């Protein structure tokens, strides 16, 4: 546990009667980029602010670099933060912004400027030292904000929705830049976003939050392929959620819903359950099969086509690659679910 850069133990944050973050515990390893993902109001930003020291926990313990900082305000912690609005000081030049931290912490001005120059050149901002933030482009502003946050070699670098002010077209590039930077400087980073695609793209691990609690922690593929709850399955990517019962069968467990049944791979205890199947793990084929369906809608999306298919399990969302044969509305098709695709996300044992 001691190699963790950040350690939360039963942390709670209340504002009067409202509990923003409730009893959360997690650890973030050194050099790791962990994303907090969830819908707005889930407590992810509060968690980030608890790491920064901009909020102090009502209960529980926050360790940064092995030190208990639960009662220490932001100014006494060694964290760097990149704000959603960048929060560059409008009355200071780029250099003044970047050197602000070292100088305000009592460092030598000349050293701070030298260090600032170095960081700025590493981020490709040389020559802009004397500009005002208002004279920079959005992307440059963001890089200045990052430079300012990492100039003091923080124990942890925090990103609060850093892409929300970036053009949709540029987002992919900027998030790659952030990931690249984090690896290059071997920084421990905490990243907050509500965009699941962004989270899957940048993270080593993702913490999914819901209603102030942690819903699931795991690598992007863990979360996508083995969601442990309806919420996670639904929030990350698209999912077909089917309610039914698991029964013991001869060739392994059988899942039954309404009039239909399917064989499950692996083990599953009997009882009521919710099954999640990703739309791209279902294939459609003209003709007859074990599971029969009718195309209800077909939506052409360029790189893929999405179908809604009526089946005995109810309507299923199917995402077919552009290379697959196309089907028309009202076509009868065979629906083929990959054997390892169904994941049980909610389970209630039989009494």
């Amino acid at each position, binding site marked *: 546990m001691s190699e963790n850069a950040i350690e939360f133990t039963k942390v709670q944050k209340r504002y009067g009667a409202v509990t923003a973050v409730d009893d959360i515990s997690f650890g973030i390893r050194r050099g790791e980029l962990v994303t907090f993902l969830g819908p707005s109001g889930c407590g992810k930003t509060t968690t980030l602010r608890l790491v920064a*020291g901009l909020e*102090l926990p009502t209960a529980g313990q926050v360790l940064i670099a092995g030190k208990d900082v639960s009662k220490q305000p932001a*100014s006494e912690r060694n964290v760097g933060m990149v704000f959603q609005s960048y929060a*560059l000081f409008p009355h200071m*030049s780029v250099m003044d912004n970047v050197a*602000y931290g070292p100088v305000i912490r*009592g460092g030598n001005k000349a050293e701070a400027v030298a260090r600032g120059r170095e960081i700025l050149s590493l981020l490709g901002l040389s020559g802009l030292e004397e500009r005002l933030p208002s004279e920079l482009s959005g992307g440059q502003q963001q890089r200045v904000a990052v430079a*300012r946050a990492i100039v003091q070699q923080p124990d942890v670098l925090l990103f609060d929705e850093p892409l929300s002010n970036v053009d949709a077209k540029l987002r992919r590039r900027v998030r790659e830049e952030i990931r690249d930077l984090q690896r290059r400087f071997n920084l421990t980073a905490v990243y907050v976003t509500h965009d699941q695609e962004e989270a899957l793209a940048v993270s080593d691990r993702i913490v999914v939050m819901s209603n102030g609690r942690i819903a699931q922690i795991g690598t992007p593929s863990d979360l996508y392929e083995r969601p442990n709850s309806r919420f996670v399955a639904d929030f990350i990517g698209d999912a077909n959620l089917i309610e039914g019962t698991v029964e013991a069968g001869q060739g392994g467990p059988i899942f039954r819903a309404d009039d239909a049944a399917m064989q499950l791979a692996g083990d599953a205890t009997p009882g009521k359950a919710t099954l999640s199947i990703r739309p791209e793990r279902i294939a459609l084929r003209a003709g007859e099969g074990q599971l029969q369906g009718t195309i209800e809608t077909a939506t052409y999306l360029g790189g893929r086509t999405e179908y809604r298919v009526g089946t005995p399990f109810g309507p299923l969302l199917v995402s077919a690659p552009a290379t697959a044969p196309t089907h028309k509305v009202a076509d009868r098709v065979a629906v083929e679910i990959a054997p390892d695709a169904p994941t049980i996300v909610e389970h209630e044992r039989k009494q």
Partner: protein
Amino acid sequence: MRRLGEAIERAGGLWLLAGLVAVVLLPWYRIAPPPLEGGTTMLGSALAEGLAGRLWLLPVVAAMLALAAMRGVAGERWRAHGATLPLAVAGLALLIFQAFAVGLRGPSVDWIAALAPAASLGQTGIGLGGFLAGLAFCGLIADALAARGFCRGDRFASAGVVIVVALLSLFVFFPIFKLATASLVRPDGTLAFAAFGERLMAGDLWGTACLYSSARCGVVVNTLILGILAGVISTALGLALALLVARTSIPFKNTLRAVSILPIITPPFVVGVAIVVLFGRTGLVTGWMYDWFGIVPSRWIYGLPGVLLAQVLSFAPVTFLVLLGAVEAINPTLEEASKTLGARPLATFRTVTWPLLRPALAAAFLLAFIESLADFGNPIVLGGGYEVLSIKIFFAVVGARYDLGNAAMLAMILLALTLGAFWLQQRWVGRKSYVTVTGKSDAGLYAPLPKAMTIPVALAAVSWVAVTLGVYAVIVIGGFVTDIGRWDLTPTFRHLSTAFSFEVGMDGLRLYGSAWNSLQTTLWVAAIAAPLTTAIGILTAYLVSRQEFFGKRAFEFGTMLSFAIPGTVVGVSYVAAFNVPPVDITGTAAILIICFVFRNMPVGMRAGIAALAQIDRSLEEASQTLGARGMASMRTVVLPLVRPAIFTAMIYSFVTAMTAVSAVIFLVSARHNMATAYIMGRVENGEYPLAIAYSAVLMIIMIVCVLLISLVIGRRKLGRRTELQGVAAPAAAI
């Protein structure tokens, strides 16, 4: 800076060091207390005095020493230790207790005399040591609270909250409390409910005879009649001016706006004096009226008409500004919609514009009403036999029959009326505003004023402008001619030299004029009060709009409340509270400064809140994550960005300190006289030209100072801008 700060921090922090110095080294009392048997102590500090026999000081000293011991025993994180907060609170409580328990003439609690015989000698008011010790205890309490997570652990903010609360308690609420007690308690300390009831019910307060006969009304009724009339007329006039500026194409709009600033820099009395010069029995206009129309001169101006005229002249500009904002905030498309639906201009005005203006009209009315209740300068010059509360309070304290109990009771009535109006303003008007301005820009043009309304509106405005110009012409000319009242316009510097004669001789500059003393005091007080007012106002704004802490609502309410207390009430309450130990500061310059600071602080606070609302909170958070503690963050990020608010607060508090009269009139002394009090003396003696000359000088000084302040604060802004263009700007100039 930071290194020094850390060294102090290692030694236990600024507050602890200051507290130790305060109790061990600094003189505890402002004036040396009655000597003890062992003679006077050398330092006069709490420790020395306590050891010499004033035993009640020792627990306070012990609390401070115990806190120092805590630092030694509990180490670096001693502030979070369970015993620190109780110790600091106990220290402050002991300090306050001993200050009240042993008064000037001896102990008010018997057992203290039994324990410490020296108590029967009494003690004087606390001085440097006592104040600093109190401040240090507050700071230590704040530190200990911050260590427990108060204000998110920010020690600067926590200290700000605790110290502002302590200062407001001492200089706003404690005096009001003493005032309430003074109205209920006889000088010998017994409760006097019967006397209070008798006074409260007296006919000279509530009589309404004037409404149906020629007899006089009670003073409360008089005050209310004046307030309501002044409110209604000022609001109507303000509306007329606002409509004229916003909805017609008259020329000289900017002149009108500029003229509306004048009353703010006009010293009190002088408008009243000018009105007497114009409309008095021997006044200029009165004379013309007799010559041209045969109207027999009378003293009609003294009493309700004169006071009302003077107040309307002073308040209409304020209501004008409030209503101009409201008229300009109406979305023009609403009026256009009304027209497309078939309403004629007058109908549109009646059904759309007027209802939308109603909340602003109510706000303007209440503002003028409150100002009228608090007004002191105009009634005293023009009131004649028409008595209002503020005047009656003044004469109960300053007049031949000194009766603090009666003054206190009258002040409580005035306070109740004002707070009632203030409450209405906050409650009712505050919620009922129709904001029709949105971020989106609406196409559409303002509807011109309906023709039927143009003529009455213009007439009202023209007569206001005429009287205002007349009044200010008298002010500008009056001081520099022989006797403007008799239309003797021979230019002379006689009045000016009476006030401000000086000589440059062998031994330097010598000031002979009778007004130099008051002018110097005024400038000093204004110059010291302005930055203090600004500092505490902006600090409070920062705490209210940027910090989250327990009891914030009450904190906000308390600061706003101090805004609503009329100056006369503040004056009497200061007399009631600060004439005797433990805080006996009447007659000093300090009480003048303190009075201005706490009366004007809410203005700085409002300006600060408005400015801070424009600044993204994440800027301060960014500076905090970069390692700036509360104070550094304030200095490097907040203050540079709220410079316009600082400017406003500085100007306002400076100008008010030069023109305010209602509170200071109770607080001036022979040594520390203020310009306004001096002018009032001249007015009472009938030396009108001298009063006018002095007022003109004050106005010139104010204009010059406003320009100077704007130059100092404004130039830095310019410097910033040139710095942006220059390449060689010093990097990291923090």
